[in-house]
């Protein structure tokens, strides 16, 4: 226990000395630094650099976190399974139905030359359906009307 007490006492002294630095006047701080043979301007530059390194480290970490989140989202999108119709004809019919129900998707999805999407390849139709699924278009209850 004596050791513990001795440690606490020593810590108390060092903490008071540290806190006394906080209350030291500007003139004294400069005097103290010069008395130690330090150049105040050089010390100040050293401190500013250390702080800016902290800022840079924070920004990099933030950027890294944003990038990782983006990667995760992209990964999630790639791994989402949508239940698409089995046949190319059914897929094409579904795409037509979606574009009829929500025509705003058309210009966003199809270029002018494919407005008549009968010219789209089966793979293009599938890709468009996947994109629409990501946008939540497949959850429209009207799509199920008339099913069964």
């Amino acid at each position, binding site marked *: *226990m004596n*050791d*513990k007490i*001795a*440690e606490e*006492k*020593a*810590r*108390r*002294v*060092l*903490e*008071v*000395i*540290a806190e*006394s*630095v*906080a209350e*030291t006047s*500007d003139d*004294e*701080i*400069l005097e*103290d*630094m010069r*008395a*130690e043979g*330090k150049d*105040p*301007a050089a*010390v*100040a*530059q*050293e*401190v*500013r650099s*250390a*702080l*800016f*390194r*902290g*800022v840079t*480290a*924070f*920004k990099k*970490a933030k950027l890294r976190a944003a990038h990782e989140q983006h990667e995760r989202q992209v990964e999630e999108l790639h791994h989402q399974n949508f239940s698409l119709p089995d046949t190319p004809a059914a897929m094409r019919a579904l795409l037509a139905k979606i574009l009829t129900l929500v025509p705003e998707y058309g210009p966003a999805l199809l270029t002018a030359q494919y407005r008549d999407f009968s010219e789209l390849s089966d793979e293009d139709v599938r890709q468009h359906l996947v994109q629409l699924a990501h946008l939540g278009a497949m959850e429209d209850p009207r799509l199920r009307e008339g099913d069964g």
Partner: protein
Amino acid sequence: MAEPASTAEIEEAIRSLTDQDAGRLKRYTIRRLAAIGRAARGKDWEDLLQEGITRTLAGTRAWNKNAVTFVGHLMGVSRSICSEMAEKLTAEKNEEPMSESELIGAAKNPALNPYQLAISPMPTAEEITETRDAVDAIKRSFRDDPLVLDIVSALEEGFNGPEIKEVLGISQKDLETAMRRLRRAVPKVLS
């Protein structure tokens, strides 16, 4: 409602640091780390300030620029970080390190004996050395300055400034000049 400073404001505050404020920050963080000894785990004043800035920017210790100066804020954050480090070491010392079965099966070889490996809640001699030796060295360097020695003893006992003045029968100026001698001696002792 207090509004935390933005990143741009924090960057501007760093650029605007005066020589005096920057010097104060460096001296303060060095002494704060010295006060926690081994609990600092090798971190230096730059690490401490960078951690302070990171917490400030992340908003976990936002800087309320209307209530406190940038330097005051960073000293406060540094103080908290040092306290956390000291508390962490204490918690590690106090935590139950071994299961009962491990202790029952204690090996005879001291190197394999969990009793030997268990972290003692008491500081080790080496740990005490860092803070206590620093204060012992301070006392040795002031062996010809009885007032500073008395002040150090009073600080060890937990007396505050007014109490020290009263107990030692000294003026505010006496206390300030003695504290100044004490403060100036620390870099030599810690180096």
